[in-house]
């Protein structure tokens, strides 16, 4: 595991005002860590998708924001945690266009394309944790999903 650069910050996700606050805090942290404008924009957009999932599908929760360092490279780990119903079929949930809640079905699959690493840990009935890790390395994000 990579060494934390600074203590983890917990931010609540319980309303759409919280979504706006989480986006602002993630942008500020990414800027401080040296993320470029495009990478910041992608990361904050992914944050918005995942935080909204936490709010809408998970019934609210929180995000843990942890600045990381590996050698000279700074990174950011974001864990979106809820205690909601969980995801029954993860493969289906990761499919472009699949939605359980009236959105466009791009939240999870789209967010995965915007960051370097996205891991979903979900247990039906016990909640969902989505963890995103992004490094301010200037390396392009790997194209894991279908375009």
């Amino acid at each position, binding site marked *: 595991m990579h060494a934390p650069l600074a203590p983890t910050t917990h*931010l*609540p996700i*319980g*309303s*759409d*005002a*919280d*979504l*706006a*606050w989480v*986006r*602002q805090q993630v*942008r500020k942290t990414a800027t401080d860590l040296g993320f470029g*404008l*495009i990478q*910041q*924009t*992608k990361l*904050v*957009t992914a944050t*918005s*998708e995942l935080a*909204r999932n936490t709010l809408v599908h998970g019934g609210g929760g929180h995000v843990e924001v942890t600045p990381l360092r590996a050698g000279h490279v700074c990174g950011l780990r974001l864990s979106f945690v809820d205690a909601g119903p969980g995801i029954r079929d993860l493969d289906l949930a990761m499919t*472009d266009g699949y939605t359980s809640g009236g*959105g*466009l079905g*791009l*939240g999870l*699959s*789209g*967010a995965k*394309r*915007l960051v370097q690493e996205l891991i979903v840990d979900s247990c039906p009935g016990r909640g969902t944790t989505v963890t995103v890790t992004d490094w301010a390395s200037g390396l392009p994000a790997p194209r894991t999903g279908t*375009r």
Partner: protein
Amino acid sequence: MTASSATHANAVPVLALGDILLITLQGELHDTSAEQLQYDISHRIAHSPLPVNGVVIDISGVDIVDSFLGRILAEIAATARLLAAQTVLAGMRPAVAITLVELGLTLPGLDTALNVDRALALLGRAPAAPPPTRPEEGA
């Protein structure tokens, strides 16, 4: 609760310029404000004493467009079209455009322009600033 005063949950103003509605989005837009805007625009088009033929939404001050806001913008354009008005999305930042494409949200039904002047020109209205001097006008 945790939202700072820098965010605004207030309604977004809708300005009328002749037969065009101009909406300027700035900074953080709450989900409820976006939904309210969608209603306000369709209400204005349907009930305006003067006909509304075009809608220009300026997003040059918007840092990110996620799938929620993207859906709202697409629905505003679709609703306006059914109410006989054309919508142009103006001033999208390059980083936002790159992110939307990677997200998979290319908003195929939306007309776009690089800024509000060009959006007005696209709708057949004189731009707010005079166009560059034409060669014939020199003499």
